[in-house]
């Protein structure tokens, strides 16, 4: 039987590999051996019902959930024993579900906050070209932006830093369709620029238009992997996983 959790060989090197990841919130065991791989330049989604462990997987990769076992390798380097700020500096950018825009900082300060960790980040002009809504809002308090603009700012601020792998946690949550469309355009543009993206989504329509592969999570595990090309013939299987 073919290993469903391994990606098809695209030739690109593996950027992030997660093996047998277990994680706990206090006493509660929430991840039960997550396995996944992300290759350079791919857009990969984590799909699954509420509580399946998608957000926890991202938080465990970043070290925010610190009680965890298993292997997390980024560019061949083990991350599990590194403190959070070193994981951040290794080149992984994280956009949390709640967006994390700082109220005591202006839009400009939010945008310029994350330090540049590697060369090759986008310039502020390039970022404004990608997210025109942010232009001219520099001195506005960060949290006075609309929900969609805050989401754009949350993505925008890590593009400057030279981080090459982006973990986006439900970027479309609670946004109007027209804004979701704009976020989609931006994510596509980022993929074309060579960013590697892991997308946690509830909005399957949005995810299906962007991703190369879909990992399906259930009860703290990756239970399946469906490449975008096989989505059509597997829609029933997918419904079963995601259906309520």
């Amino acid at each position, binding site marked *: 039987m073919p290993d469903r959790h391994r990606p098809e060989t695209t030739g690109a090197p593996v950027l992030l590999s997660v093996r047998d990841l277990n994680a706990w919130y206090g006493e509660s065991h929430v991840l039960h051996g997550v396995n996944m791989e992300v290759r350079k330049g791919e857009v990969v989604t984590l799909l699954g019902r509420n509580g399946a462990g998608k957000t926890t997987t991202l938080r465990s990769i*970043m*070290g*925010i959930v610190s009680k965890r076992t298993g292997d997390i390798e980024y560019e061949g380097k083990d991350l599990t024993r590194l*403190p*959070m*700020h*070193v*994981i*951040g*500096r290794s080149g992984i950018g*994280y956009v*949390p579900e709640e967006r*994390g825009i*700082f*109220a*005591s*900082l202006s839009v400009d*300060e939010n945008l*310029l*906050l*994350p*330090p540049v*960790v590697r060369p090759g980040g986008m310039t502020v002009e390039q970022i404004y070209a990608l997210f025109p809504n942010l232009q001219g809002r520099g001195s506005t308090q960060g949290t006075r932006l609309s929900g969609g603009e805050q989401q754009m700012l949350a993505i925008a601020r*890590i593009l400057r*830093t030279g981080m090459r792998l982006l973990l986006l946690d439900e970027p479309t949550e609670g946004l109007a369709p027209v804004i979701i469309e704009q976020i989609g355009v931006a994510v596509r543009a980022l993929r074309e620029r060579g960013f590697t993206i892991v997308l946690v989504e509830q909005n399957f329509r949005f995810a299906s238009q962007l991703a190369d592969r879909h990992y399906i999570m259930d009860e703290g595990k990756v239970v399946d992997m469906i490449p975008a090309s096989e989505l059509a013939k597997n829609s029933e299987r997918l419904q079963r996983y995601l259906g309520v």
Partner: protein
Amino acid sequence: MTEFLSVAPQVLFGQLLVGLINGSFYALLSLGLAVIFGMLNIVNMAHGAFYMLSAFLGWLLLTHTGLGYWWALVLAPLTVAALGIALERCLLRHLYRLDPLYSLLFTFGIALILEGAFRHYFGVSGQAYPIPELLKGGHNLGFMFLPTYRAWVVVFSMAVCFGTWYAIERTRLGAYLRAATENPTLVQVFGINVPVMISLTYALGVGLAGLAGVLAAPIYQVSPLMGSNIIIVVFAVVVIGGMGSILGSILAGLSLGILEGLTKVYYPEASNIVVFVVMALVLMVKPTGLFGKEH
């Protein structure tokens, strides 16, 4: 010369100056408390003890090594800041996951230990600390006599206070600090070493108390009780300004010092309680303090 509400101008301006001096110390001390509370969520009860410790360090430097005021102004706050780092890294750090009450009690214990030790070795009677040569004397302004040292204290503390305000509110490092106050985890995920930043913030806060201690040495006597004498008022100032508000603590410190001075002129009996009356009024009208943000 005209009198102000039947008070001679010399008396009025004299007390205003005293108020301004006290206000400068309130501002420096409450600024440090605000920085520490804002970032670490710790009510640093040891603040007054660090202020006293620094004044003593200055006095010990002078009496044991002959190093004078200017050396003390640099070395004593740095030593206090270094002690602050050691305290934060070795002890305080373990209390962050607990209720803030634990760190309050812990720092209160540190204050009692420091004060008790100095009482034991130096007694409660104050030690005099001379005004440095350069700042002796004063100027007759016509309506009052302005001692040079006191003018220096006011100007220097204001410069330090607004310098700190500028660094926190207007620079990139300050943006890290403000962001980490809101969401330390996310700031650390961005690659910033937040634990080190927390240590340095605590060091900055107690270092400011240390600076106030050396500045105070030639004005008040250097005594083990000088910290606990001033710290209760400073806590009231912090509450009035708004817990954690940088600008609030500076402005409240200065204006309450002046208010205290004016009360000494017009109704001396109330001068010791006026700050607390204001605190009660502010708490009734705006519980988050004049500059505090709603949470």
